[in-house]
């Protein structure tokens, strides 16, 4: 560690006031500070990605394409997808909450490779800068999926800059996963056995495996598309006998598991929230832990369900269909175990728990509609319609972002040392839930009725449902802005938080809020299982 400036007399030294100045942030190797750097970076990308969604929903208020050209609309949904997936959702929970909490939950002073951790943030930001350049220079219109040969040959937009951005940011994801795997293997405090690990850690371990195994494949795939565009290395070029379907295989080999990079950490968050606010030990610890690993493994075997109508053989379609049904089992195990944990719990309806309830309900809807899509015959009907759009937004927004916000609220006192305003927080959680459902539920119906995705105009009979969706999106936007405002506000004006405001059993709460630079004054020794709650322990604030 570099020089530490003198703290103000009377205040306790913690990671936020241990050192001041912009350099102490940009050159930090403290995992907690890097988590905050990520928080700032991805929030920025989130609002950019959100702006494109706003423009799309505005265009879709009327059936005619009256606000933008179809080409412009293509760029809107492409840049919305690229920004949200690669620069917000993939890093969201792992890089912010995971970075902050993985060392604390296992009783370590830092991640195994703090400098690589900082490097991964810079890589993510450089990747984001390339993509932003592509946006500013005129955008890209291939869809976030970069399907060849459109992306490699025909598109006249900034594919290479975007591809370079996505390629670069992939290394950030790989390095984060690598850091977590090594940290969880080698840095656990004495007594922290594998089956005493919090489920948040199991979820991040499984996520890291996907990041490490999947991301390199999409990296080489995107690189090959770039080489094809720039240097005639036509591996997917049909003119040379190349196969565009091969691109889809390689792309989805990563991009289906990538869905689990987004949702598994969220499931880890929910396990922590449900136990804490039901004041109960998790039901079926080993099953919840094991299902994370099962999802990571099975998730690699289902990519073909994106290609049922792409011309892959019927037999591989059937195999991929069956495997996709199988992957629902570990997800369902989690939902059942959370529900069983709630049973006879002393449930406290604080904001993080409201998000947890939101997650469980919305994820269940998103997951079950995923089974519709895994069914070959049904998929032929709803493929590339708004049904698919609604399905994956229930998983990624209703699931991943709800868990992310729930986690941010739950650990906010630990991160900032301040309490957020509970009233505002509950209100915005409610607004988000309503706005979310109003935005995306009508899209299930639209898709079922046959409205295809990625069109800027549509037949008149779809207008009512589209207006509902756009109205919901504006409510959703307000729901995102409110927490942004009061969380920033609370950093300065919020009531100081006690070390453990929720009466949580987690190790990360057994150190001051905010924690000292090395997390614990002395290395903790773990003597019991996680989630030891008794009903009479009360939540301290409320």
């Amino acid at each position, binding site marked *: 560690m570099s020089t530490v400036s003198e703290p103000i007399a009377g205040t306790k030294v913690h990671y936020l006031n241990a050192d001041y100045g912009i350099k102490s942030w940009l050159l930090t190797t403290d995992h907690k500070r890097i988590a905050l750097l990520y928080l700032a970076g991805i929030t920025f990308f989130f609002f950019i990605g959100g702006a494109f969604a706003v423009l799309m929903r505005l265009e879709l208020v009327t059936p005619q394409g009256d606000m933008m050209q179809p080409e412009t609309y293509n760029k809107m949904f492409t840049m919305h997808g690229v920004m949200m997936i690669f620069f917000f959702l993939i890093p969201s929970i792992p890089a912010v909450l995971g970075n902050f909490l993985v060392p604390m939950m296992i009783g370590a002073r830092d*991640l195994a490779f*703090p400098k690589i951790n900082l490097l991964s943030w810079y890589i993510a930001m450089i990747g984001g800068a390339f993509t932003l350049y592509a946006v500013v220079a005129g955008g890209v219109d291939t869809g976030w999926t970069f399907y060849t040969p459109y992306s490699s040959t025909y598109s006249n937009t900034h594919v290479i800059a975007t591809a370079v951005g996505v390629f670069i940011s992939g290394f950030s994801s790989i390095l984060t996963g690598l850091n977590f*795997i090594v940290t969880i293997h080698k840095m656990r405090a004495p007594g922290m056995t594998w089956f005493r690990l919090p489920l948040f850690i199991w979820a991040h371990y499984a996520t890291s495996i996907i990041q490490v195994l999947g991301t*390199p494949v999409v*990296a080489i795939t995107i690189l*090959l598309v770039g080489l094809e565009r720039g240097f*005639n290395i036509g*591996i997917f070029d049909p003119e040379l006998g190349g196969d565009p379907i091969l691109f889809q295989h390689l792309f989805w080999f990563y991009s289906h598991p990538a869905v689990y990079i987004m949702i598994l950490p969220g499931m880890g968050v929910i396990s922590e929230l449900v136990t804490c606010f039901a004041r109960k030990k998790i039901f079926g610890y080993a099953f919840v832990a094991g299902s994370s690993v099962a999802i990571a493994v099975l998730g690699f075997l289902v990519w073909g369900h994106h290609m049922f109508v792409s011309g892959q053989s019927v037999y591989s379609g059937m195999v991929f269909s069956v495997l996709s049904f199988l992957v629902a089992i570990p997800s369902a195990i989690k939902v059942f175990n959370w529900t069983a944990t709630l049973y006879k719990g002393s449930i406290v309806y604080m904001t993080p728990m409201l998000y947890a309830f939101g997650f469980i309900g919305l994820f269940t809807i998103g997951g079950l509609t995923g089974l519709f899509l895994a069914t070959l015959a049904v998929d032929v009907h709803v493929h590339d319609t708004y049904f698919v759009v609604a399905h994956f937004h229930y998983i990624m927004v209703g699931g991943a972002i709800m868990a992310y916000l729930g986690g941010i609220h739950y650990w906010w006192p630990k991160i900032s040392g301040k309490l957020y305003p509970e009233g505002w927080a509950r209100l915005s959680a409610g607004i988000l839930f309503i706005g979310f459902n109003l935005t995306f539920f009508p899209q299930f119906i639209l898709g079922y009725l046959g409205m295809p995705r990625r069109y800027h105009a549509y037949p008149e009979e779809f207008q009512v449902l589209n207006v509902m969706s756009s109205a919901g999106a504006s409510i959703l936007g307000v729901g995102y802005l409110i927490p942004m405002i009061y969380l920033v506000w609370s950093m300065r004006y919020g009531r100081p938080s006690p070390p453990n405001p929720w009466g949580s059993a987690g190790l990360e709460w057994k150190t001051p809020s905010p924690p000292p630079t*090395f997390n614990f004054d002395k290395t903790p020794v773990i003597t019991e299982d996680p989630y030891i709650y008794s009903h009479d322990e009360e939540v301290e604030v409320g």
Partner: protein
Amino acid sequence: MAEHPAVAAHHQFDDLEQQLDASTLGMWVFLVTEIMFFGGLFTAYAVYRSAYPEAFAEGSHHLDLTLGGLNTVVLIGSSLTMALAVRCAQLGSNRGAANYMIATLILGLVFLVVKAFEYHHKYVEGLIPGPNFVFDSPHARHIELMFCFYFAMTGMHALHMVVGAGLLIYFILQARANRYSPEYYGPVEVMGLYWHFVDIVWIFLFPLLYLIGHR
């Protein structure tokens, strides 16, 4: 031990042993990501080679077996010198480690120079994919595809060699500054893992590209 200044573990580790364990595991995990990275290319290669076996064999005959074979020997030699460098570092001989790493670096550069000559020949013969690709054969287009793989795969491998050479220079300077000792030799060992991996990739690339259809 005046020549080996005592090295403390980084702040996040309890001791040097934990630090070495962590960095070794970290490199293995990184190599797994590398396997997946090259795995994407190898998969695509396997798909097309089974689709166009004659074209791949015909294209392969236009690769220089002598230069490719020479490079294979050079790389295997460099793996030997790298392994000896690790051994020296473990025994605390910084001089030996530095010298063996210099030998490794030289062999690596020989490989790259030979590779550059091969690329140049391909350029002269008009075997660079793109509008200038000339090949008189009914399979010409598929052979162009084969050369796409040749350049993508060997290019990616050469890039890894360049990175490895850069890292070697850094570790040579460290060894010359007497940084390593029987207690602290982890970085050289981890460097060795990377170097051997890059060699092994070539051991797969050589037969897959140069030896198709030769009897």
